[in-house]
């Protein structure tokens, strides 16, 4: 397998080079084919790798490509690790990545060839970085990918750089990520000093020798990294703003892959987390708090992409709760199903936005069911999946998380259920406002409504199929014994959750049924409230509604507490320290040189005689000096 594995990340990188360097003279067709082709090729290779991994008797493979850093006793190889976890992520990334690349060809067709190629170059670079992130056999390679995806996220959020608020959103995402990255970096340094290595195998082997406080520190720092990348409290505000980028980007980066990097990292270092219970509690608490907060905000948003973004934050929170309660398999399972249905929802939203000519306000939509039949069906499937109705994929993964939460503490379970109910409500609010009732947009928009081309609907259909069936790999034991294939597959990497209380199957079934019933009730309420909204006029919000619509005023709070003081400090530094002191120094040196040059200019008279005289006198002075020195 080591023969071809390096090709999986290399192909997107080659695509990046071709599209990036040739963007001024390649045609759109060519860049589209190259951009998507390399991804499909690496998807095929990933499938190959996956099939080899899933053969019985497979052991973890570490492929050393070259020595990356070799100083004194420290040797950090540039190595890839292929095991169950990374191969699963490879499939998700390259598979969904391929679909989204194909989708992008149609979605971005209005761009000029140069910008079109730039888009695909960024997208390929992103996939390359993401593959590095999941394939790395040590934390350094993971960090390289980690930084790479952060950069690409920045580039793609600010893809339409003509719009300044988009640029600000890009900067916000980048800076928030940097805060998290600092934590990750510190964790890497700490691991190096503690274990003398940052290769997964060695670190995890030595983990139990380290004191618990050290492990807690390392894991908290790692978690801070995950907070930034996976948009958890308090660093989540960049993700909704990141919707400034093109919609396929939101689907790929800000829903399906990059934001799950934090989950991957924690799942990867589950050995460390299992040894640090304090951090686990912290992860669970932060996760569920984020899930709740984002779900409440999503209830009152009107921008189709903002709702999906907050929904992503909320689902990520659920995943973190799963990791926090020790259900690593559940977290990874939800990453997978979430990747399917959230990518589907985003691409569906993209299809709607495409049809609406870049209108994103759901109050101005409605009744799109007839005009966009394929989009409608697939979007509905996505909504059902995320709401968690059986037999859609979301049901299985969410159920596993909730069961694990219940094992840990009922309060987690209760909060998790509330989040799920809110999710069902806001998703169907979105669905009904968009697809039911009457059209509330302008006449011009109504005339141009059309179903998207095949290259956009094709990924939707594929993703819809996976949103339905993707959960069947993790059927809980209550329905059938030994049907949880994913758990069995991941067992070598992720430990099985040890259960505190064992419910009887009937009890478990009853709770499951109750939750499903409540979700259905939520959907019906949403249908009653929003299925036939007539006017696009918004009701004047008050009290709690206004509070939620304004996203708990978190942005304003950050603005007041962090951004304003920092920009004031920056203004002070620029006005006083930079302009007065540093510029003063620099200009002073310049002025001093000019002044002394004016004074010395008379020496350069052009009279050779005076030069010789000066030379002679200098020689005399040198000799006198030397003689006196000797004496």
């Amino acid at each position, binding site marked *: 397998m080591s023969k071809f594995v390096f090709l999986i990340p290399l192909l997107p990188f080659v695509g990046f080079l071709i599209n990036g360097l040739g963007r001024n003279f390649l045609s759109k067709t060519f860049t589209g084919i190259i951009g998507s082709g390399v991804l499909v090729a690496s998807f095929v290779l990933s499938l190959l790798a996956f099939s080899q991994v899933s053969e019985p008797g497979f052991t973890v493979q570490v492929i050393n490509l070259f020595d990356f850093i070799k100083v004194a006793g420290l040797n950090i190889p540039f190595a890839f690790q292929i095991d169950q976890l990374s191969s699963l992520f490879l499939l998700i990334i390259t598979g969904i990545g391929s679909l989204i690349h194909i989708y992008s060809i149609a979605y971005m067709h209005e761009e000029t060839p140069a910008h079109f190629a730039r888009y695909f170059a960024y997208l390929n670079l992103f996939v390359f970085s993401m593959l590095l992130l999941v394939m790395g056999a040590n934390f350094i390679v993971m960090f390289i990918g980690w930084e790479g995806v952060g950069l690409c996220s920045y580039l793609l959020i600010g893809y339409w750089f003509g719009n300044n608020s988009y640029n600000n959103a890009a900067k916000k995402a980048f800076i928030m990520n940097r805060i998290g990255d600092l934590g990750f970096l510190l964790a890497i340094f700490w691991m190096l000093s503690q274990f003398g290595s940052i290769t997964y195998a060695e670190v995890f082997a030595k983990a139990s020798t380290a004191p618990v406080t050290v492990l807690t520190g390392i894991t908290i720092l790692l978690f801070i990294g995950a907070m930034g990348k996976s948009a958890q409290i308090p660093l989540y505000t960049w993700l909704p703003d990141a919707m400034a980028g093109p919609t396929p980007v939101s689907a790929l980066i800000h829903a399906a892959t990059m934001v799950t990097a934090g989950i991957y990292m924690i799942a990867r270092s589950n050995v460390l987390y299992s040894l640090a219970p304090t951090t686990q509690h912290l992860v669970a608490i932060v996760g569920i708090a984020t899930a709740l907060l984002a779900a409440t905000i999503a209830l009152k948003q009107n921008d189709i992409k903002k709702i999906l973004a907050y929904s992503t934050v909320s689902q990520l929170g659920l995943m973190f709760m799963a990791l926090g309660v020790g259900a690593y398999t559940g977290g990874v399972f939800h990453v997978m199903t979430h990747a399917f249905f959230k990518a589907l929802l985003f691409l569906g939203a993209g299809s709607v936005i495409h049809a609406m000519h870049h209108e994103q306000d759901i109050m101005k939509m409605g009744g799109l069911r007839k005009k966009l039949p394929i989009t409608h069906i697939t979007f509905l499937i996505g909504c059902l999946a995320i709401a968690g109705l059986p037999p859609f994929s979301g049901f299985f993964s969410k159920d596993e998380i909730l069961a694990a939460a219940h094992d840990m503490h009922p309060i987690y379970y209760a909060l998790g259920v509330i989040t799920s109910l809110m999710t069902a409500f806001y998703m169907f609010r979105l669905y009904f406002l968009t697809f039911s009732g009457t059209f509330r947009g302008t006449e011009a928009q109504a005339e141009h409504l059309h179903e998207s081309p095949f290259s956009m609907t094709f990924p939707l259909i594929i993703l819809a199929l996976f949103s339905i069936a993707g959960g069947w790999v993790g059927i809980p034991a209550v329905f059938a014994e030994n049907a949880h294939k994913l758990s069995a597959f991941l067992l070598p990497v992720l430990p099985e959750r040890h259960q505190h209380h064992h419910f009887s199957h009937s009890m478990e079934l009853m709770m499951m049924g109750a939750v499903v019933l409540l979700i259905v009730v939520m959907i019906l309420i949403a249908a009653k409230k929003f299925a036939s909204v007539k006017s696009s006029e918004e009701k004047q919000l008050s009290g709690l509604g206004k509070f939620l619509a304004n996203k708990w005023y978190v942005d304003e709070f950050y603005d007041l507490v962090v951004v304003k003081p920092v920009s004031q400090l920056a203004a002070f530094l620029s006005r006083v320290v930079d302009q007065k002191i540093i510029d003063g120094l620099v200009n002073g040196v310049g002025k001093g040189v000019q002044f002394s040059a004016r004074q010395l200019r008379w020496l350069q008279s052009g009279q050779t*005689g005076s030069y010789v*005289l000066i030379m*002679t*006198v200098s*020689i*005399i002075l040198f*000799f*006198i000096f*030397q*003689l006196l020195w000797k004496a």
Partner: protein
Amino acid sequence: MHITEILFWILTALALFSALMVVSSDNPVHSVLWLILVFMAITGHYILMNAQFLAIVNMIVYAGAIMVLFLFVIMFMNLNKDSEPQKSVWLRLAAVVSGGSLLLILVAALKDNGGYINSMKGEGSIGLIKNLGNTLFTEYVVPFEISSILFLSAMVGAVVLGKKESSTPAA
């Protein structure tokens, strides 16, 4: 006093006097002639020190070729009359004072030297052409060849500089 010492003093006096005359005479042609005299005195010193090859070369190249070149240029440009404007007295005084101080300081720096030179019978083959030639064409053949390149470039330079500019008008 041995004959060598007498010769030494005579040649020294001649060299110094002629050198002073080179500097002080008004007519450039006279300067050249006095300089030839200085070189002859120096050649005498070389012979006294048993450096026959250098003595001959000095005589032929310096006193002969180079000085003739000087003379030729002066004649060529018709500079033999005293047309040189004088520098101010103060400047000249400053020049003499600084030159004198330099002499003083160099003497002070170099005077503590116990070496001596005598002329013994039978010694002194190093100044002969045979020895110098041997060394020059074995050990020092590369610098020798390089100096030939230097000559070539000097020749080319002189031709280029001395050529009348036909295309551009004289400044």
